[in-house]
């Protein structure tokens, strides 16, 4: 468990952030560039002294300005993966990896050297110098180095931001695997929603130095009062499990708490747990079960409430599928034509389903 409370003057505005992060899994600090996310990370790691603040990790006080406590970075044992890797250029990859391992306290446990090499696929790189690595390889080594120092907390400061599209796609699965192997809290700073979808369990939304909202990813993506809802890809994330492959029809069935969804055949085996994003603009509703349509997924739902969108001509519908929240974005005209009011039983049609491929086994 990580508790953070910070106040600091920061690039013209006041940073005033309070939040807690779960003892396991990924907590994403999400917000636009320059909102103070990285400053929060630096203050937790001890690389920046905030004007006021308190950081407590698993009951140990790392920082408490009121009591004059501020552990230096080397005694906090927070592993950081920086955006630009920051490998030591004069050391080989192996010496970089062992740098933190050598300085870890005697009793500290964590994944072994060979285990980390295999996890990140960096066995071949050991004798090389960082200058001879590609951007993606460098970032994988940086991940390994942070993991091998036996940290109590892993901090990631936009680790993919310096990489181009294909490189990001190369690293994302490694991050997902690391997340499973690490068994420690991970604080992940990003402004990319696809990284949140792929990795995060909890979300802390930061806006101009303040925490706008925090909670599980599923809960926050179903809210329409947050900046998340204004995005084109706004929509709920649903945790589900591959229930069945129908090879004859070319379909895979995904079960979740409130029912099941069909989607084109998926590569992962039956039993794989992953997360689906159902974008609000891909969900429409009908008063009666429609017939003769191409859509595979027609689900019985209850309309819980209607919320405004950024556009005056469209509304969000909060729908409930036996306990699982769903969002639909429809026109105001459709709302009045169908006479939609909260409490009504409806049929939700899901046009398409986007997967985050990296979420195998969460």
């Amino acid at each position, binding site marked *: 468990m990580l508790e953070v409370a910070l106040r600091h003057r920061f690039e013209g505005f006041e940073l005033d952030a309070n939040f807690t992060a779960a003892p396991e899994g990924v907590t994403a600090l999400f917000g636009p560039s320059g909102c103070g996310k990285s400053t929060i990370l630096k203050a937790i790691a*001890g*690389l920046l002294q905030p004007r006021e603040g308190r950081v407590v990790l698993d009951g140990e006080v790392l920082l408490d300005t009121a009591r004059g406590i501020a552990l*230096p970075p080397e005694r906090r044992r927070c592993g950081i993966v920086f955006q630009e890797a*920051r490998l030591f250029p004069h050391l080989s990859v192996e010496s970089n990896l062992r740098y*933190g391992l050598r*300085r870890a306290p005697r009793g500290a446990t964590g994944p072994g050297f060979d285990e980390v090499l295999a996890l990140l696929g960096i066995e071949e790189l050991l004798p090389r110098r*960082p*200058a001879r690595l590609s951007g993606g390889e460098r970032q994988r080594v940086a991940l390994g180095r942070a993991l091998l120092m036996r940290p109590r907390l892993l901090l990631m400061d936009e680790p993919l931001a310096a990489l181009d599209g294909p490189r990001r796609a190369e690293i994302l699965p490694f991050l997902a695997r690391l997340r499973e192997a690490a068994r420690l809290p991970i604080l992940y700073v990003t402004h990319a929603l696809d990284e949140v979808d792929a990795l995060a369990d909890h979300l802390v939304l930061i806006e101009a130095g303040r925490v706008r909202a925090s909670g599980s990813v599923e809960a926050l993506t179903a809210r329409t009062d947050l900046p998340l809802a204004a995005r084109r890809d706004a929509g709920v994330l649903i945790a589900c499990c591959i229930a069945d492959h129908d090879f004859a029809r070319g379909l895979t069935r995904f079960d979740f708490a409130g029912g099941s969804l069909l989607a084109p055949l998926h590569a992962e085996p039956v039993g794989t747990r992953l997360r689906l994003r159902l974008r609000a603009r891909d969900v429409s509703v009908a008063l009666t079960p429609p017939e003769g349509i191409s859509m595979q997924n027609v689900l019985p739902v209850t309309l819980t409430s209607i919320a405004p969108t950024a556009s005056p001509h469209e509304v969000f519908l909060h729908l409930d599928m036996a306990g699982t929240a769903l969002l639909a974005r429809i026109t105001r005209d459709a709302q009045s034509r169908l006479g939609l009011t909260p409490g009504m039983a409806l049929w939700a049609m899901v046009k398409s389903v986007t997967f985050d491929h990296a979420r195998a086994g969460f």
Partner: protein
Amino acid sequence: MHLSPEEWQAVRLSLDVAARSVLVSLLPAIGIAWLLTRRRFPGRFLLDALVHLPLVVPPVVVGWGLLMLFGVRGPIGAPLLEWFGIRLVFTTGGAALATAVMSFPLIVRAVRLGLEQVDPGLEAAAGTLGAGPIDRFLTVTLPLMSPGILAGAVTAFAAGLGEFGAVITFASNIPGETQTLPLAIYAATQTPGGEATAARLALVSFGLAMSGLLLAEWIARRMHLLLGRF
């Protein structure tokens, strides 16, 4: 080209004095370069100016200043002689001290350039990986700034071979004790029939200086390769 035993002595003494001056000034130079680059403190500009003073003040004045401080009745020279029996005026050690003071700004400048090449982000990364301040300095900062340190040492050595004004003022011109190459050349030009000696020593001086510059360049290239900059 044959050098007489006396001329050889001047060459050897010059090498000895230059080497000692570099050895003496290297550690303080690293410390002061680090202070000037990485720390903000009151009096930083004063320290910076003080370090660079020998570049602009006439060398004779530096020698005179040393004479005042380290003379047998000076505020530093008197206790040195009384407590440790060390006399610097008119000795090889004194010539090395005068040379060290004169070449100090050269070393500090080169070391600073080297240190400015070191990304403080790497030191921060080392800190989060569990390395304390001294550990960080020894395992990250020092190796990464070593091209600057070596370049500074070689340049100061080459320059130290030719230090004249401060040495002759503070340590005088004593053959075998403080008569380095430039002093020997000067003495030769003042002696009737010394033209050949002066020419030979001037040639040696030139050769040593050139070798020093080439060596500095070669070391810089090697170091950059070793540090993986290319």
